[in-house]
């Protein structure tokens, strides 16, 4: 196993994981339907599968790429953050139970949010994936704070195009709530003092602003040119490729490769 894993190595882990997960679900179903929990004898096979599944998830977590994704406009530090860049079928994208290493971020980091322009057909994974809208956006109630700036960049996620909107702050005591991590229903991180913190804040898309031009012109939103390996921060709306993005403004929810229709009740 390479660190970080290659696409092939990742696929091998996921194939094994999903196959064993199905077996575990079958065994679980059998045990529940075979006369009740109280009288059900312990199943060594199920326990072994559970241990194997935990091991596979740990292997996935330990070998997840931690990528240079953005740059803090206050300190010029590069933000390194975990991401599964090979597709949204990796458990990093599991909305309710994301698998990722503890994020050890620099002092200026505030929140990592994002959007994803999907290319059909979408990968199948037995969990809910919520990669955000199809075009980049900002959250005015976060970005309006004097101590917050955001940086917009892009990264491939398998065949899709990911847009990262990372919020940074020059005030460690800023009172603006952190946004949920891109693709997850919570945020979690380890600060420089070694304190593990987590929380939940996810405004609906009605509170998103997709008109980025004014934020860029106010220099509240900076941007990084796609495929710029130096992650140089750019200002001004001229030549900003992200202003031409087209796609859905709805938060996308995907399960088993399907985008649920609006109003469909989701099992979250």
């Amino acid at each position, binding site marked *: *196993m*390479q*660190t*970080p894993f290659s696409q092939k190595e990742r696929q091998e882990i996921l194939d094994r994981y999903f196959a064993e997960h199905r077996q575990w679900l079958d065994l679980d179903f059998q045990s529940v339907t075979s006369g009740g929990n109280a009288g059900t004898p312990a199943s060594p096979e199920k326990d072994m599968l559970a241990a194997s599944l935990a091991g596979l998830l740990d292997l996935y977590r*330990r070998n997840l*790429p*931690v*990528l*240079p994704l953005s740059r*803090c406009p*206050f*300190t*010029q*530090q*590069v933000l*390194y953050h975990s991401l599964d860049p090979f597709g949204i079928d990796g458990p990093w994208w599991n909305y309710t139970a994301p698998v990722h*290493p*503890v994020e*050890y971020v*620099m*002092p*200026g980091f505030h929140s990592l949010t994002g959007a994803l322009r999907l290319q059909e057909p979408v990968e199948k994974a037995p969990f809910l994936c919520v990669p955000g809208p199809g075009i980049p956006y900002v959250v005015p109630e976060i970005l309006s704070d*004097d*101590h917050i700036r955001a940086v917009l960049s892009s990264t491939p996620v398998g065949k899709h195009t990911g847009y990262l909107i990372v919020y940074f702050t*020059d*005030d460690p005591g800023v009172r603006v709530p952190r946004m949920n991590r891109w693709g997850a229903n919570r945020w979690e991180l*380890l600060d*420089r*003092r*070694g304190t593990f913190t987590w929380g939940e804040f996810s405004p609906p898309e009605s509170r998103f602003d997709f008109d980025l031009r004014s934020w860029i012109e106010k220099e509240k939103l900076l941007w990084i040119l796609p495929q710029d*390996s*130096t*992650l*140089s*921060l750019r200002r001004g709306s001229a030549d900003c490729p992200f202003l031409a993005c087209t796609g859905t403004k709805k938060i996308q929810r995907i399960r088993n490769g399907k985008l649920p229709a609006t109003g469909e009740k989701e099992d979250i």
Partner: protein
Amino acid sequence: MEKREGEPKTLLIAKDHVRPLIDRFGMVKNELSGLFDLPASSATADGAALAWWQARTDEEQYTFRAALAALASPVLIADTGVNIRNERLIDTHVLLPSLRWNDPAFLVASENGGKQLRLEYLQKADLFTNTLFLYLESGAPAYTMEMKFEIPVLDFAVLLACTDLRQRARFRALLDHAVFPSVYKSGDIAAGLTEGIAYPDPRWLLPFALPVLHLKADALTPDSLRQSLERLAKTGLVKIDRDTVAFTEPGEKFAESAGGRISSIRLDLFGVDASGVPGRQSVILIRGEHLLWYAGVGGKKADTVVVTSITLDQAGELLKELFTPAAAPKPVVPAKPAAAPAVAQVAAPAAAPQKASAAGGAKKFCPSCGKPLRQGLKFCSSCGAKIS
């Protein structure tokens, strides 16, 4: 025993693991990353580095990853040498990955004959600058005097050679129960200069300062030495009489204080600004028994040294400023009492240590965002933080 918050965390990594891991993780590199002499990646080194990495615990990996990112893309590297009472020399590199004052930093040093790097994680950069300040603070309170001069780098080297020669002659006179000499032959100065360059013994001022003076190898010739002494005489630091040289009163003040120093610090700073433009700045701080000297290499003219007496408070501000690389290091001249004369002059030492005036002219930076501050403002014009 558990580590307390703020204590440095020490890490050891083989030098030939660094580049392969930086490359493997796709870390962003900048111009300064090449300053550390690190072996290039190879298939063998890559395999060994990977095996080593996978054997690290999660916690070790987090800290090593931050250290590798800092080595790949530092915004400031400060090569630091500290000489305390001529007894020991501490040589270390300080690595800042952030443009903001007091963000986490790393100390980097070679271990095991240069095969390993020792990295110490500092939660705040001032854990290091406070240590430097303590070396300057030791001893009696530092007075300041109205003395400032700007001379070419070569002249400063000659002045330091004269100071070393004076100190040597004094030691010899003490051993011989002789009178302290006050006149030196220019031939002895030339010999001292040559010896100081040839033998890097950091117990003497000239060899200690040489790494940050960036003196060109061919700069020293009999002619250039004579011209230097003539310029020092014009500046008012020495008097020349045929082939003998003596210190004037201002020169004697400098030589006595710097020659009998308690500690000295040399800093060679390499930085990049927000646009990635590199810069370099060198500073020497010499703590005499009663005076504290600042020598900044590369003033407005790149090949000059600005020498001035400063207070401890000013030294503290200066250290903070140097380690707040909001922009590429530019020559810094600390706040100076008003009307500094172009020619060296000496005023009587103040009766008590002077407090540095906060608005004394030293460039200040926002403690929150690190941007330069305009004088008189109560709030940072960049981030709005309140300035005390």
